């Protein structure tokens, strides 16, 4: 029996449910020091003086440094890696500790190092920083107006860059349109907010450095940090131990990681830094923060002929690793799952005095899905058609795949009608509408919203997104090394770096089936740059479709060698050896068989019968660069109730049909979908990173930044259709971000449906009680 397709219990769990996981904060090293940062209290200011003398006198303090004092410790600034051909991106120098000016609240200006974290906090209180405040730039649209104060004088503008892509003739579509729908959407700023705060521990032993860090990207971090600190890559080991959630917030190389390395180098002792939750909200990168101006053109019969988007993205004060690229990352699916003949997209990035934005779960694709889905709803209202009928009319049909969009993107496979049909098997819309009508008579406002979504993921074909493609200065293949031990268990090193996805289990299932080894005896290693080959880490729903495929390819090479060894010892031809139920046997002779343990034993202690052209050992590697992205899709329905007297929105039902190709472990797929949808419900109803007009962050704790609890979230009804991807041999597509990409428009659409009898035409997220209440009051002609 194969293990792929089974809901195996996770191999990760026994240590985690008993408190025996090892997260970065759990690491204690002899002589370890603790760093605490002094951060700007201003959104924009000149540093006029920093007095560290009082702090240095505190008990337990080993050192206090300002940005000026550490300037010589860094060989290079924090990099940004997008260089699109022909486009200049304004990129300010970005150093771990600031010198001269600060550009957002939380910008670090000095560091205290002490023998305990408490002593470091005490001393940090005694560091006196004087600032000369400058005008802060907060609203991205105002930032683009003439005469706005500037975040960076040197650029003479707050515009970071413009980027455009188009296909088909949108102007003609607009000229010929029988119907034109326009809309403006605000997709507000959010935090990734993993429950584990960031933490980094650095150690220097002579010229060898080790950094343990809460990162999704240990390999990328080694490359970047080696450059920033002038440490050769062979002398820098980066380890991601158990990582307590990422959601994109840990897809970054942060100032603090460079800083603890510099401090360990300078002081010759291990240095740990742990983020407070307020620091996370203030200085771990944010996400979203886009304003979208959308135009959709159509015929009277509902056929969409064109779509245009003008995106203004608030990037904050600096360019982190991928900051300016994230809004554009949504572009391949900015036409949704519809056959739209003309698409015209334009992006403008804007500096403001806020923490930079970057990838947060979905990264550009939730924003794209939000506007296309809600504008399809609006088109349906305009035409007086059923919103699902408008969708069906424009869906790319199953027989059109692989489908090349107007932008030249090739959607690999799909069956959008089937996923919507399946959704409606679970969700009886006629019954819902009659229930809705009777509830309205009782003063209960219930609404339903749909989202038929497609995602681009499996980052990425290097040719498409690398230096000669869209211009990321990187490649996105993945590596795997598969090693069978002399006693027949397997040790795999994968270049991906998971943080909750269950890769130790799903990858063991894939490798186990191919090798003929029980997945319980397949150990998946990752996240340690000294243990395996170069990898490109975990983000963009890539681990399975790129890293899993690399693993499968390496495992097949091992299987092939195992068959040669087996054939030689059983005196058969290698092509006659079959793997069945964990045994390698000669075709037609099940009794002539060997287990992997026997074969690997022979590989490691070779008997003389083994031909000399078979090398000893049983270990193979593979590097896999996909030829295309993968495009998971699905259909979601959300039902909400709104209390018109309080404005409170409650999600009462959520049904999701997703298609990520064959599920390696269905239980893990469901788990990813549940979590992804919850992340989106959080953004739609509760979560918002909010800066006031002076640039002070108002939502800097879990008191003000409201993550949903179990009490706010419904149980989920999930189902799957299964359309394999032709891109990889496993047929798999990503599922980690799907729920987050799909769900905000479903929630928003449900809220609008519920509010419709109350006269509310449109409201931006988050749908907090106050906002909903005020919208109802305004629509009813009352005071707002």
């Amino acid at each position: 029996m194969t293990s792929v397709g089974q809901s195996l219990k996770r191999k990760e769990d026994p240590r985690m449910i008993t408190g025996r996981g090892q997260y970065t904060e759990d690491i204690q090293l002899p002589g370890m020091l603790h760093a605490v940062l002094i951060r700007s209290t201003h959104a924009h200011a000149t540093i006029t003086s920093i007095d560290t003398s009082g702090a240095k006198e505190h008990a337990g303090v080993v050192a206090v440094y300002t940005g000026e004092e550490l300037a010589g410790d860094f060989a290079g600034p924090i990099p940004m890696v997008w260089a699109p051909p022909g486009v200049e991106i304004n990129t300010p120098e970005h150093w771990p500790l600031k010198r001269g000016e600060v550009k957002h609240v939380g910008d670090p200006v000095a560091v205290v190092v002490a023998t305990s974290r408490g002593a470091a906090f005490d001393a940090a209180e005694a560091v006196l920083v004087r600032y000369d405040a400058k005008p802060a730039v907060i609203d991205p649209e105002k930032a683009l107006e003439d005469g706005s104060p500037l975040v960076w004088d040197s650029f003479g503008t707050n515009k970071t860059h413009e980027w455009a892509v188009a296909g088909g003739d949108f102007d003609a579509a607009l000229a010929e349109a029988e119907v034109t729908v326009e809309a403006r959407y605000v997709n507000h700023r959010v935090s990734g907010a993993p429950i584990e705060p960031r933490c980094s521990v650095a150690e220097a032993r002579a010229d060898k450095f080790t950094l343990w860090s809460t990162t999704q990207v240990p390999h990328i971090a080694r490359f970047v940090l080696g450059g920033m600190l002038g440490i050769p890559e062979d002398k820098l080991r980066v380890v991601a131990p158990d990582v307590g959630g990422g959601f994109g917030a840990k897809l970054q190389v942060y100032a603090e990681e460079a800083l603890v390395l510099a401090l360990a180098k300078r002081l010759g002792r291990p240095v740990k830094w742990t983020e407070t939750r307020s620091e996370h909200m203030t200085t771990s990168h944010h996400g979203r923060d886009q304003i979208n101006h959308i135009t959709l053109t159509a015929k009277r019969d509902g056929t969409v002929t064109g779509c245009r988007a003008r995106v203004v993205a608030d990037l904050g004060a600096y360019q982190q690793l991928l900051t300016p690229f994230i809004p554009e990352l949504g572009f391949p699916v900015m036409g949704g799952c519809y056959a739209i003949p003309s698409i015209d997209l334009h992006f403008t990035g804007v500096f403001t005095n806020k923490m930079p934005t970057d990838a947060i779960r979905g990264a550009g694709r939730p924003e794209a899905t939000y506007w296309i889905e809600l504008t399809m709803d609006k088109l349906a209202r305009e035409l007086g058609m059923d919103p699902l009928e408008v969708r069906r009319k424009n869906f790319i049909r199953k027989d059109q795949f692989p489908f090349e969009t107007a932008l030249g993107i090739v959607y690999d496979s799909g069956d959008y009608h089937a996923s919507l049909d399946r959704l409606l098997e679970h969700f009886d819309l006629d019954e819902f509408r009659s229930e809705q009508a009777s509830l309205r008579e009782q003063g209960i406002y219930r609404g339903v919203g749909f989202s038929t979504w497609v995602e681009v993921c499996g980052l990425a074909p290097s040719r498409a997104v690398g230096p000669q493609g869209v211009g990321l200065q990187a490649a996105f293949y993945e590596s795997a090394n598969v090693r069978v031990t002399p006693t027949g268990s397997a040790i795999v090193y994968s270049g991906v770096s998971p943080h909750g996805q269950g890769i130790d289990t799903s990858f063991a299932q894939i490798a186990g089936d191919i090798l003929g080894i029980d997945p319980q005896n397949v150990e998946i290693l990752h996240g340690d740059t000294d243990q395996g080959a170069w990898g490109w880490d975990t983000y963009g729903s890539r681990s399975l479709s790129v890293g899993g495929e690399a693993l499968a390819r390496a495992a097949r090479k091992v299987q092939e060698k195992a068959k040669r060894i087996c054939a030689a010892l059983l005196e058969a031809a290698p092509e006659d050896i079959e793997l069945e139920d964990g045994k390698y046997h000669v075709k037609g002779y099940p009794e002539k068989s060997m287990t992997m343990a026997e074969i690997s034993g022979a590989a490691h202690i070779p008997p003389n019968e083994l031909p000399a052209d078979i090398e000893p050992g049983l270990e193979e590697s593979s590097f896999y660069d996909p030829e295309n992205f993968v495009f998971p899709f699905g259909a979601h329905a959300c039902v909400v109730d709104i209390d018109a007297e309080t404005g409170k929105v409650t999600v009462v039902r959520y049904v999701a049909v997703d298609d990520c190709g064959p599920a390696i472990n269905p239980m893990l797929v469901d788990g990813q979908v549940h979590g992804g949808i919850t992340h989106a419900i959080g953004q739609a109803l509760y979560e918002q990173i909010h800066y006031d007009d002076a640039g002070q962050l108002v939502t800097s704790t879990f008191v003000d930044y409201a993550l949903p609890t179990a009490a706010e979230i419904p149980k989920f009804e999930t189902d799957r259709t299964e359309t394999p991807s032709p891109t990889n041999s496993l047929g798999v597509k990503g599922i980690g971000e799907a729920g987050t990409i799909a769900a905000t428009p479903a929630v928003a659409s449900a809220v609008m449906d519920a509010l419709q009898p109350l006269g509310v035409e449109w409201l931006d997220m988050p749908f907090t009680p106050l906002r909903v209440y005020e919208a109802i009051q305004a629509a009813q002609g009352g005071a707002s």
Partner: protein
Amino acid sequence: MGATVRIGVTVNGERRESEVEARTLLVYWLRDELGLTGTHVGCDTTNCGACTVHLNGEAVKSCTVLAAQADGAEVTTIEGLAPEGGLHPLQDAFWEKHGLQCGFCTPGMIMAAADLLQRNPSPSDEEIRHGLEGNLCRCTGYHNIVEAVKAAAGKEVSA
């Protein structure tokens, strides 16, 4: 460095004594002094519940209790919830039902759920959801956590 206090606490059945700074929070004493790193810190404001332990049999957020307040008390952490080598029904159910992903909130979630089941051995879905609203999870969407607590309800601790 402030004043110090001498404390004696029975942690997971074993008497532990220490001289601690008066301001030391229970969670840091457990983690840094005793090496019981299964109890986690996720926020500074008593919201996330990752630090939940049992103090004299009741769930508390150990980031909001001074170590000194635990003097003379009995504390149970995730490491001591089940006898060595065994699993508490909740631990088993979280594993069985995929009630965890990154695992960071899990110890606190299990300790809070154990307290809930002590007070209410057969809770409804609603009671579970409200009973756990002091514990945040960013990964699971809570669905499988609720399933795990339901599955564990009524089961005895295995020896």
